[in-house]
């Protein structure tokens, strides 16, 4: 079967101090080209200072069918949040 340019996911850091964020995807034959294409496609309006590209097939994803067991157990762990704890009003800076 004929091979087409694979799909890549593009992550862009908008400015130093911020994390790389998923911007979208594109097609490229190799990593070098993926970087160049990402630069041309996703930073035309000065949107970035750094780019990551990863071939989409190399990204492992959680299965939404397992969302219940993966994420719901965290919903009732309210004691992980500061508002769970009662403190006298006089206490400051805590």
């Amino acid at each position, binding site marked *: 079967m004929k091979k087409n*340019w694979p799909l890549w996911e593009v992550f862009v850091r908008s400015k130093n101090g911020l994390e790389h964020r998923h911007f979208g995807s594109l*097609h*490229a034959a190799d990593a*070098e*080209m993926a970087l*160049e*294409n990402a630069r*041309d*496609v996703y930073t035309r309006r000065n949107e970035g200072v750094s780019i990551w590209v990863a071939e989409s097939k190399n990204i492992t994803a959680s299965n939404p069918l397992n969302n219940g067991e993966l994420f719901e157990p965290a919903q009732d762990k309210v004691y992980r949040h500061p508002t769970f704890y009662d403190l006298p009003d006089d206490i400051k800076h805590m």
Partner: protein
Amino acid sequence: MKNNLYNYILGIADNSLILGQRLGQLCGHGPSLETDIACTNISLDLFGQVRSYFQYAAKIAGDQRTEDDIAMLRKERDYKNVLLVEQPNTNFAFTIGRQFLFDVYHLAFLTELQNSNDFTLSVIAKKCVKEVSYHLRFSSDWVKRLGNGTSVSKEKMQEAINGLWTYTDELFYQTNADKEMVFEGVGVDVTKLKNNYYSRINEILLEATLEIPESKWFQTGGKEGVHTEHLGYLLSDLQYMQRTYPNMEW
């Protein structure tokens, strides 16, 4: 001096103008969407450069002419671009080959132009150097890809390099105005760029497993306004509106 400087700027600007125009013709017809966008970016960079140069030239001319008058209302023989940049978009290998053979020169030229004692030109050159570094990266990557790709692409890339080779030597030709400008410390002595140019080109062609053409017979004339037949058609498009509807604002 003023006239020499004016002509000198036109000589630089016309290269970007004509190459930008050629690349602009490809918009919407690239081998992939991503490549299409990349080639258009280069075209946009070049037109941006053109505007800086012509706005400066208009200021020097000091008459009523605007950047557009200078860009679009000259006669064929008054365009001073090198023959290389007016060559047609025969296929993607030619487009890349033309870009590559020009980019290596363009980057070396702008790097030197940054030291011009003409302040405006040095400022423009500083901005353009970054853009053109990227152009060269793009075009040389593609030369390597096509050279090392399939047997078909190798053949097409070789054919393009062979076909365009005859236009490379002109890059280092100096007109009288050029010489004056070099003497004044404004212009770049292009004759000094030649050796580095060919060794850089050879390096990349070698990496691309392509052969370095042996032909030592070169075409010149563009810098003196003697062009190939291709330029006339390109100019009819470029000038169409300004010629058909003279003295109007758009």
